[in-house]
């Protein structure tokens, strides 16, 4: 439940930002960031609809990449030979 996902800010209206990650758009509250800290184009880590911290574009991209790999099960790490055995 504590996982945050990096998203890119598309537009900002008051404390609400329209954010995008991997083609999915969401309204995200910027209320927990310092005022004016996050602008369109910036990347934020989002948890339960709230931006909890800023993140650089490069870091956001590498996080997405790794989450993708993890979720597709395509990790380059050796799998346990026989789980549960």
């Amino acid at each position: 439940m504590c996982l945050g996902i990096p998203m890119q800010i598309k537009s900002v209206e008051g404390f609400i930002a329209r954010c995008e990650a991997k083609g999915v758009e969401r309204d995200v509250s910027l209320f927990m960031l310092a005022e004016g800290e996050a602008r369109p184009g910036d990347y934020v880590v989002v948890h339960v609809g709230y931006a909890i911290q800023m993140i650089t574009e490069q870091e956001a991209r590498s996080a997405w990449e790794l989450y993708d790999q993890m979720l597709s099960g395509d990790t380059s790490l050796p799998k346990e030979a026989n789980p549960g055995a």
Partner: protein
Amino acid sequence: MLNAHRWLEEIHRLPLRDTVRVMNVCGGHERSITLAGLRGALPTQVELIPGPGCPVCICPERDLYQAIQIALSEPVTLVAFGDMLRVPVNVPRRETRTLEQARSRGADVRPIASPSEAVTIARTERERDVVFFAAGFETTMAPVAAMIEQGLPPNLSVLMSGRLTWPAVAMLLDAGAAFDALVAPGHVATIMGPEQWDFVVERHHLPAAVAGFTPDSLVAAIYSVLRQKLEGKIFLDNCYPEVVRAGGNATARAMLARSFKIVDAEWRGVGVIPKSGFGLRRQYSHIDARLRFADHVDESRKRIGEMPQGCECASVVLGRIYPDQCRIFGTACTPRNPVGPCMVSDEGACRIWWSAGRRPTAA
């Protein structure tokens, strides 16, 4: 930064002799570790132990019962994070055991993914009382505090059930816990600052490192604590500097402090842990669902506050056993028919191990 592969090579080069037990306290960490198959990729001396990292799993049975009873007997809409809906309380089978069952029996129970959804529902249905059953750790309670600070519609109240992570680890360590190093939760530290975990190093002289959620960051943190231990130079490392900064998120922490006081709080199956819960401050008593609705807690119920009969979640949560050491893991207890909260929640170690293909050990 090195990738997970390179860090693993470094770890295999370390002159490890004795077993090192590394505890993590975050369901997200456990998921990455298990999905990436890290246990199998590490030297056999390194044990990775999932600890108290699932807020749903330790959500007090009494609070859950209270939420179910409010949903059933009051004319309200009860909203909660989706994971909470299938967690069972200890009542006889014919009675309502979960929020999901309450819904199928006519109660208006709705899953939400964000505190702002609770506000939206309350604004759209002004004539109806809406109760937000708010469970979660610091990362989740900060947005709840933000929601409160932005002002709630008068028909919205909060049933508080939030917890702090570090006091559970402190309790384990004070009791002489069986682990040698800690991987600290990255998004809790994003909000609260890494300093919250200084006590592990300063008071208990154990290596610790804050980690993010990718295998890269996790393996870096594991390497850090192993190396610290070998060299005898321990400190709190930050292996997630992208978002974890000194002091955390000051705005979020100030909001937490303005909305909540820190209270002694119950953890399901564990008991009361001092100063481990978030309670509403007095100026917010008007939004306290506990004051707005009758107290339904019935102290005569059997196994009140405990984990379900036969379920070993309490031992799993405290890192005393691995999920597959529970006698009914994967047999009587599966995600389809979960017996305990650790099999219900996406953050629960039992659920994570099952999803990654773990099956019962005792064949």
